[in-house]
C-alpha cells in the first residue's frame, strides 16, 4: 500500500520571490533589447554621417564645376565686349560716313561718292565682326548712341542654355548633406535616450520592490519614445 505523496514543501519566502524573479527576468530581457536597439541606432547614425560626408564631397565638386562653367561663360561675354568696340566702330562709322556723304552730295559729288565707298567698306567690316559674337548679338541702338549689349542678360542667357550647368545643383546637394549630418546627430541623440532607458531599467533591476516598477515603467516609456523618435528621424531623413 502506498502512501499519498505530500505536496512539496515551499517556504513562504521562496513563494513570494517567484513573481519578483519573473519581473527581473523581464527587465533583463528589456535591458538586452534596449542595448541592442541602442547599438543599431548608433550604427545607423554612423552610416548617416558617412552619407553626409559623401554628399559634402559631391557638393564641393559640383560647386567647383559650376564656377568653372560660369567663368567660362563669363569669358565668352567678355570676348563679346572686346569685339563690341571694333564692331561698333565699323557700323557707326558706316552710318556717319553715309550722312557726311549726304551733306556733300550736292556741293562735291566726287567726295560724297568717296565717303559712300568708305561707308560700304565699313559695312563689310561690321558684317565680318558680327559673326564673332557668341554670347548675344548687339542691337544697333539709336543713330547717335552706342550699340546695345547687356552683358548681364547675355550671361544669364548663356547660363540658362547650358545643360551641364542646369544639371548641377551644388546648393541642393550641400543642403542634403546638411540634413544627413543633422540626421546623424539626431541618431546619436537617440542613443542617449536609449541609454537613459537602460539606466531606468537597471534601477528597476536593483531598487526596492516598492519603486522598481516605477523605474521599469519609466524605462519602458523612454525606450518606446526612443523607438518612436527613431522611426520619425528615419522617415524625415528619407523624405
Amino acid at each position, binding site marked *: 500500500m502506498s502512501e499519498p505523496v*505530500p505536496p512539496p*514543501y515551499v*517556504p513562504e519566502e521562496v513563494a513570494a520571490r517567484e513573481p519578483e524573479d519573473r519581473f527581473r527576468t523581464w527587465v533583463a530581457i528589456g535591458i538586452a533589447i534596449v542595448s541592442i536597439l541602442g547599438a543599431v541606432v548608433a550604427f545607423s*547614425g554612423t552610416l548617416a*554621417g558617412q552619407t*553626409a*560626408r559623401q554628399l*559634402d564631397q559631391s*557638393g*564641393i565638386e559640383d*560647386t*567647383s564645376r559650376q*564656377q*568653372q562653367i*560660369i*567663368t567660362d561663360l*563669363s*569669358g565668352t561675354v*567678355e570676348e563679346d*565686349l*572686346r569685339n*563690341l*568696340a*571694333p564692331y*561698333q*566702330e565699323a557700323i*557707326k*562709322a558706316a552710318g*556717319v*560716313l553715309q550722312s*557726311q556723304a549726304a551733306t*556733300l552730295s550736292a556741293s*562735291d559729288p*566726287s*567726295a560724297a561718292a568717296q*565717303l559712300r565707298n568708305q561707308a560700304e567698306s565699313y559695312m563689310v567690316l561690321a558684317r565680318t565682326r558680327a559673326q564673332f559674337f557668341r554670347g548675344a548679338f548687339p542691337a544697333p541702338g539709336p543713330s547717335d*548712341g*552706342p550699340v546695345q*549689349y547687356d552683358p548681364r542678360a547675355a550671361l544669364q542667357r548663356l547660363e540658362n542654355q547650358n545643360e551641364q550647368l542646369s544639371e548641377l545643383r*551644388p546648393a541642393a546637394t*550641400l543642403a542634403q*548633406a*546638411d540634413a544627413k*549630418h*543633422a540626421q*546623424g*546627430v539626431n541618431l*546619436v*541623440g537617440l*542613443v*542617449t535616450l*536609449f*541609454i*537613459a532607458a*537602460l*539606466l531606468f531599467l*537597471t*534601477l528597476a*533591476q*536593483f531598487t526596492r520592490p516598492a519603486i522598481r516598477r516605477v523605474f521599469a515603467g519609466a524605462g519602458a516609456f523612454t525606450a518606446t519614445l526612443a523607438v518612436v523618435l527613431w522611426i520619425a528621424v528615419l522617415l524625415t531623413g528619407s523624405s
Partner: protein
Amino acid sequence: MRPPERIEIPEAEDLRRERFARILAVLIVVATLGVASVEFLHSIADKSADAASVEAQRLSIERQGALVRAEDAARAQIDIYAYQQQERAQQANAFQEYLAPSVTSGSTQAQLLQLEENRWTTLAALTGDLTSIKAGGATSPQQDAAFPNQLQSQSEQDADRLFALEDAQNQQRSDWQGRSGFLSVILTMLAVAIYLFGLSLTLQARVRRWLVTLGVVLVAGGGVATVVLLFAAPAPVPDSAADSYSRGVYALNTFYTKPGDQGLKEAYDDFSKAIQERPRFAQAFLQRSQVQFLLGSPQRQAAVVSITTAAQLQAQGNDLQQAYDLGLRDKLLLNNLAANRLLLAVTQNQPSRYSEALTYVNAALALDPNDPLLNYNKGIALLAQGNTDQAAQAYRDAVAHTVFTDVAHKTARNDSAAEENYVSGALTPLDLLVKYRPELMAQAKAMKELIVNGVDRKQAPPGNAGTMKVSELDVFPAELQWKAKIDGVDPSTANISTQWYYQDPQKLGWSVIPSISGIAVKATPGVTVDNAAYQDLCATCASDDYFLINSSLKTAGQCLQPGQYKVEVYVNGHLGATGSSDGTNPPLQAERMADLGMDFCRPAAWSQDSTNTSPGFSTGFTTKDGSTGAYFVRFQNPETAPGTDPATEAANIRDEMLTVFANVLPSGAGTPTIDCGTNTNGTNTLPFGPTLDANCNRSSAFFLGLTGAVETWYDYNGGMLHIGTGIAADGAVLGAFTFGPSSQWQSSTEPAPDVIFDSIVYTG
C-alpha cells in the same frame, strides 16, 4: 517525510558586496549615459566643424572664380578704353594732317580731313560709352598713377570679401574642432571611469573604494566640464566684418590716389572696424599692421620698406603680434615680425629683440629658404649681435638667392629690377644700423660691398678700386646726377654701381631708391644715356671729371620729393665715394605721356585740359583758374621740306604751336611776344639766369636733348611762358611750353614754371 531544504542565510559580507555591485551597476549606467550625452555634443561639434569646413571650401572655390572673372572683366574694360584712345589718336592724326603745309585751307582734302576728325570724335565718344573707364574718372590713367590698379582693385573687392568670409568659416571650423577635442577628452575621462567601476567589482574592499571614488570624480569632472562647454559655444561671425575687410584692402591698394594720409587712414578705419566686428580676425591685424607702418613711412612707393616713425613701428609690432597670437603663421607675417623686431632693436636700442627677430626669421626660412630678404634680415640680426662671420655667411647666401632663383642649379634670376629691390632692402637697414650703432660702420661697409659686388657683379671677386671723389650731387625734379673725379681706373670698362639714397625732411633715416640705383650701363657716344658714366666735357673740366645721371621719372614714373639725397658709388665692388645734397624742389607728381614720348612733373593740384587733349598729338595741364600750366605737342609728320635746317624747323613748329594753343593762355593774355632779356656786356640775359642768343633764343638750348632744339621765353599780358621744340630721331617734332603769372617769374633763382619745364624728359 523529507526534511525541509536548507535555506542559506547570506552573510553580512555577501550582502555588502551585493549592495556595492548594485551601486556600481547604476554608476556604470550613469557614466554610460554621460558618454552618450557627451558623444551627442561631440557629434554636434563635428557636424558644425564639417559644415564650416565645407562652407570655407565652397567660398574658396567661389573666390577663385570671382577673382578670375573680375580680372577678365577689368581687362576687357581696359581693352575697350585702349580702343577708344586709339580712335582719339585717329582723330588727332586727322587734325595733324589738316595742319600739314601741303593741305590747303578750304580744299576738298581739308574738308575731308575735317570730316574725318569729326567722325573719329563721334566714334571715340561712342566707344567711351562702352567702358567703365571714363577720361578723367577715378579709374582713368589721369587719376590713377598706377593704372589700371584702381580698376583691378575695385573689381577684386568681391573676391576679397569672399576671402574674409572663408577665413571666418575657417575660424569657426577651428573653434568647433577645438570644442570637439575637449569633448574627446571628456569622453576619455568617462571611459576610464567606466573601466574603474568594472575593475572595482573584482578587487578587495579598500582598493575598490578608492577606484570607485576616482571613477566618481572623473564622472563628476566630466559632467562639470561638459556643462561649462555648453555655455561656451563658438559664436557666429558677422558678415559685416568681411565687408569692412574688403573695403580696407581696396583702400590700402589705392591709398596713393588720395591726398596725404587720407587713403591710409581710410584703410586703417576699415580694418579697425573689421577687427571690432571680429576680434579674432588675424588677417585684418596683418593688413592693418602694413597700414600702421606706411602711415609713418616716407617709403610709400617702395617694394621693400624699412623706415617709419617710432610710434608707427610700435603700432605695427602690436598688430603683428596680435596676428601671431591668433595663430597666423604665414611667411609674410613671420618676415614682417622679424623685420619689425629688427627695426625696434636698431632704432630703439632694444638688443633683446635681435634674438626674437632671429627666431621669426628662422621660422620664415623654414617655410621658404630661397627668399633673399629673409637671408638679408638674418644677416643684419647676426651682425648687430656681433656675429660678423655668421652675418657674412648669411649675406653670401642672400646674395646667391638674389642672383639665382635656383641656387643649386645656378638658374639666373635675370631681373635686374627685382635684384635691385632686394639690394635696397638690404642696404637701407645697414645704413640705419650705422646711424644708431656707429661702432659697426666698418662691418656695415664690408657687408654693403659684399652685397653690391655680389649682386651687381654676379659674385665676381672685387677688382681695382682706383680713387674716386664725388664733387657734386645735383637734384632735379625728375633726375639725380653725380659728378666725380675718377683716377686709376677706366670708367668705360670698370663696373660702376650707383646706390642713390633719400632721406625725408623728418630725417627718419636714409633709404635706397631702387628704381634708379644699380650697375651703370655702357656709355653711348653722342647722346647722354641714363645711368652711364660719361666724361664731363665742360669748359672748366679736367680729363678725370665724370658724371652720371639717373631719371627717376623715366625709370620709375616718379618725381623727386623734397628732402636729402645721398649717393654711394661702388667701383669694381669697392665703395669708392659718397656724396649728399639737399633736394629743394617743391613736391611734384609724375605725369606720363607715352603717346607723346614725354613725361614731366607737375603740382598735384593741376588737372588735365581734356578739351586740348588728343592722344598722340597734344595734351595740357593747368591750375583750376588756368593761370599756370604746361602744354605738349608732337607733330608726327611735320612735312618739312627736304634740307631744312633742324633749328629752323623747330622754330617754325614753335610758332605754329603758339598759334594753335593761343586760346589756352589766360583771358586777356593777348599775343605773346619774345622776351629778349636785358643786354649786359653784349649778352642778352634773363633775370633768373639764362643767356640768350642774337635771336633771343636760349644759348645752347638743350630741350630734351633733341636735334635742333630751340628754347624761347615769351611775355604776354600778366605773365610769361617758356617754350621749347626739337626734332626726335624718327623725324617727329616735339614741343612743350610752361606758363605762369608774372609774379612767378620775378625770381633770382629758377622760377616755378621753369622748374616744371626742366622736369620734362624725352621717352622716345
